[in-house]
C-alpha cells in the first residue's frame, strides 16, 4: 500500500467515483483549474489542489468551473441531485456558508421530508475548515456544529488520509445530502491509502487509541492532538482512549458510551465553537444517557467565544490544542 496525502486520497476518491458513475459531476470555483484564462488548462488544480487533473480525464462537462456565486452553486447542485445526478459541489471555505446556506438548510436537507419521502438528493458539499492557516476571521472557521444540527444532512469529518478516501467515496454513493469537511491543516498529512476504492460507513466511530482511564472524543485535526497527548501520557501509565466519531451526523453514540462506561471519564476537544458545539452536544448526550458511568465532571476543550484572530500568537492560542487537552485530562484524573 502506498503512502498518500489527504489531498491525494480525496483526489483519488473523486476520480474513482467519476469513472464508476457517469452521474457524478463536480462543480465549484476553479475546480477545473480556472476557465477562461489565457494560459494552461487546469493550472490551478482546484483552489486547494484536490480536483487537480480531473478535467483532463472527465472534461469541462463534468468538472464545472463556476462563477463566484455560492448560492447558485449549491442550488444548482441540489437541483441536479434531485433530478438524477450525483454532484460534488465545492465550497472553498466553510466560512462562506453565509452566502449560500439556504439551498442547503431549507432546500436540500428538507426535500425528502417536505415531499413525504419522494425526493432523493444525493448531494455532496466538500468544504474546508480549520484555524491555523493565518487566514483570519472569515477564512478559518469550523462550523460543523451548525451542519450537525440540521436534520436531513449527514456530516463527515475525516481526520486522516485513509478515512478521507473511504468516507468521500461513501459520501458520493450515499443517497442523502452530505457535508464533507476537510481540514486545511490536514491536506499534507499522509497515511497508507489503498489504490482501489473502498468505503467507510457513516456512523461508525474509530478508536484511535485504547485506554481504560479516560475517554477523549476528538474530531478532524483534533484527533491528532488527542493521539499525541494519549501517547505522551502513556509514559505516566495514564491510558487515554481516543474516539474519533468520523461522522457527527449520524453519530456513533454507542461507541462513545461504551468507552465512557469503561473509563468513567470524558474529555472532548472540538474546534467547532465555544457555544452549542458538537462537543457540548455529545457531552449532553452522555450526561443524559450514561450519567451513572461518570466518575468525574466532563471537560470540554474548545476555542474561546471569539472570532478567529489573525496574528499567529493569537491564532495559536485560539486553537484547542494538546496542552489544554492534557491539562483537562489531568484535572479529572
Amino acid at each position, binding site marked *: 500500500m502506498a503512502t498518500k496525502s489527504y489531498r491525494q486520497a480525496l483526489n483519488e476518491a473523486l476520480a474513482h467515483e467519476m469513472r464508476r458513475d457517469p452521474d457524478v459531476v463536480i462543480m465549484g470555483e476553479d475546480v477545473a483549474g480556472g476557465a477562461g484564462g489565457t494560459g494552461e488548462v487546469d493550472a490551478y488544480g482546484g483552489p486547494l489542489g484536490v480536483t487537480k487533473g480531473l478535467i483532463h480525464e472527465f472534461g469541462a462537462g463534468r468538472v464545472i468551473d463556476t*462563477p463566484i456565486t455560492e448560492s447558485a452553486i449549491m442550488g*444548482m447542485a441540489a437541483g441536479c441531485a434531485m*433530478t438524477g445526478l450525483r454532484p460534488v459541489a465545492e465550497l472553498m471555505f466553510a466560512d462562506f456558508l453565509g452566502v449560500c446556506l439556504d439551498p442547503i438548510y431549507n432546500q436540500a436537507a428538507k426535500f425528502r421530508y417536505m415531499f413525504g419521502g419522494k425526493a432523493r438528493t444525493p448531494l455532496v458539499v466538500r468544504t474546508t475548515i480549520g484555524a491555523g492557516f493565518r487566514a483570519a476571521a472569515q477564512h478559518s472557521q469550523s462550523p460543523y456544529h451548525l451542519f450537525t444540527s440540521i436534520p436531513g444532512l449527514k456530516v463527515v469529518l475525516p481526520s486522516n488520509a485513509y478515512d478521507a478516501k473511504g468516507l468521500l467515496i461513501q459520501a458520493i454513493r450515499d443517497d442523502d445530502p452530505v457535508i464533507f469537511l476537510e481540514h486545511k491543516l490536514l491536506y499534507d498529512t499522509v497515511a497508507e491509502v489503498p489504490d482501489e476504492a473502498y468505503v467507510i460507513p457513516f456512523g461508525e466511530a474509530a478508536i484511535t487509541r485504547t485506554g481504560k482511564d479516560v475517554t477523549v472524543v476528538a474530531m478532524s485535526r483534533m484527533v491528532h492532538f488527542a493521539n499525541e497527548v494519549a501517547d505522551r501520557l502513556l509514559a505516566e501509565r495514564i491510558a487515554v482512549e481516543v474516539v474519533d466519531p468520523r461522522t457527527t451526523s449520524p453519530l456513533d453514540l454507542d461507541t462513545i458510551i461504551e468507552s465512557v462506561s469503561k473509563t468513567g471519564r470524558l474529555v472532548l476537544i472540538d474546534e467547532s465553537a465555544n457555544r452549542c458545539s458538537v462537543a457540548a452536544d455529545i457531552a449532553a448526550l452522555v450526561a443524559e444517557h450514561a450519567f451513572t458511568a461518570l466518575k468525574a465532571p466532563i471537560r470540554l476543550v474548545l476555542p474561546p467565544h471569539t472570532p478567529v484572530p489573525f496574528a499567529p500568537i493569537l491564532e495559536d492560542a485560539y486553537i484547542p490544542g494538546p496542552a489544554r487537552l492534557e491539562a483537562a485530562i489531568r484535572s479529572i484524573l
Partner: protein
Amino acid sequence: MQLTSDELLRAYRTMKSIREFEERLHAENATGDIPGFIHLYAGQEAIATAVCFDLGTRDHIGSTHRGHGHSIAKGCDIRGMMLEIFGRRAGLCGGKGGSMHIADLDHGMLGANAIVGGAPILAIGAALTSKVRGDRTVAISFTGDGGSNQGTVFEAMNMAVVLKLPCVFVFENNGYGEATGASYAVGAPSIAGRAAAFGMPATAVDGTDFFAVHDAARAGIARARNGEGPSAIEATAVRFHGHFEGDAQRYRARDETANCRRSMDCLSRFRGQVTQSGLVSPGQLELIDAEVLALIDSAVSGARAAAPPAIDDLLTDVYLAY
C-alpha cells in the same frame, strides 16, 4: 390561433381547474378547516398553463409559495394536492409539506417553495442534469415580481448564461409582493430588461393573454431544447385574492380586485378568444366547467374525509438511511 381545438380545450381545462381549485380553497379556508397559510393563484392561470403547455413529464419546473397553479399545469394530481393542503396522509407529500411544499417529482414538479426566489437556482440544477445527459429536457423556474429582486435569482441567471443551460426564467409580475408594490420594490424599469442585461433574450408579455404567454414560452423552450441556452419571460398578471387567505388587502384601492376581475380575467379572455375563433363552442367549455367542478367537489370531499398522518410519520423520511 395555431393550436388545434383539442389543444385549446386542454388549455381551457387546465386554466379552469386552477381557477376552480383556488376559488374553492378560498371558500373552504373560510371554514377554518385548512391548516396554515394558503396563497391563491386565481387570476394568473394563463401564465402557468401556457408556460407548461408544451412541457413533457420529464421537463422540470420549480415553483413559488403560490404554487397550486404551477402544480396543476404541470400535471400533478388534483386530489393528491387537495389532500396535501388539508394535511392528510394520502396527500402528495404525505401531509408533511402542505400548500407551500407541494412537489411531485414523477411529474417534473420540483416543489412549491416557501423561500421567495427559491426556484431559479434549483431549476438551473435540473437544467444541468439535462445538459449532462443530453436528453433535451428543459427546466423552468417561476418567480414573482417581489422574488425577482432576490440575489439568488440573479446568480441563477448568470450561471445559466455561463453554462448555457436549457432553462427559462419566468417572472410573474402581479404588481405586489405581499403588501409592497412592484413599482416600489423593483428599481429597474422592467424585470425583463434586467434579465436581458444578463446576456439572454427576454420578453415582456401580457400574462392575462394565454396566447401571448404561450408564444413566448414556446420560443424559450425551443431555444433551450436546441441547446441555445437560457431566456426569460416577464408576464404581467393580476392577483384576484389577497397575498394569503386572510389578508384584508387595504393596501389595494377599494375596487382594484373587482376591476381586475371584470377587465383582466385571463379565463374569460381566453373563453372569448377561442369561441370567437370558432374553433371551440361555448357548449364544449361548459361541459369542461361541469367536469372540473365535479372533480374539485370530489377532491374536497375526499380530502375532508381522509385520515391525517399517523403519529409515527413524524420520524420517517428524514434520510434514506441513517
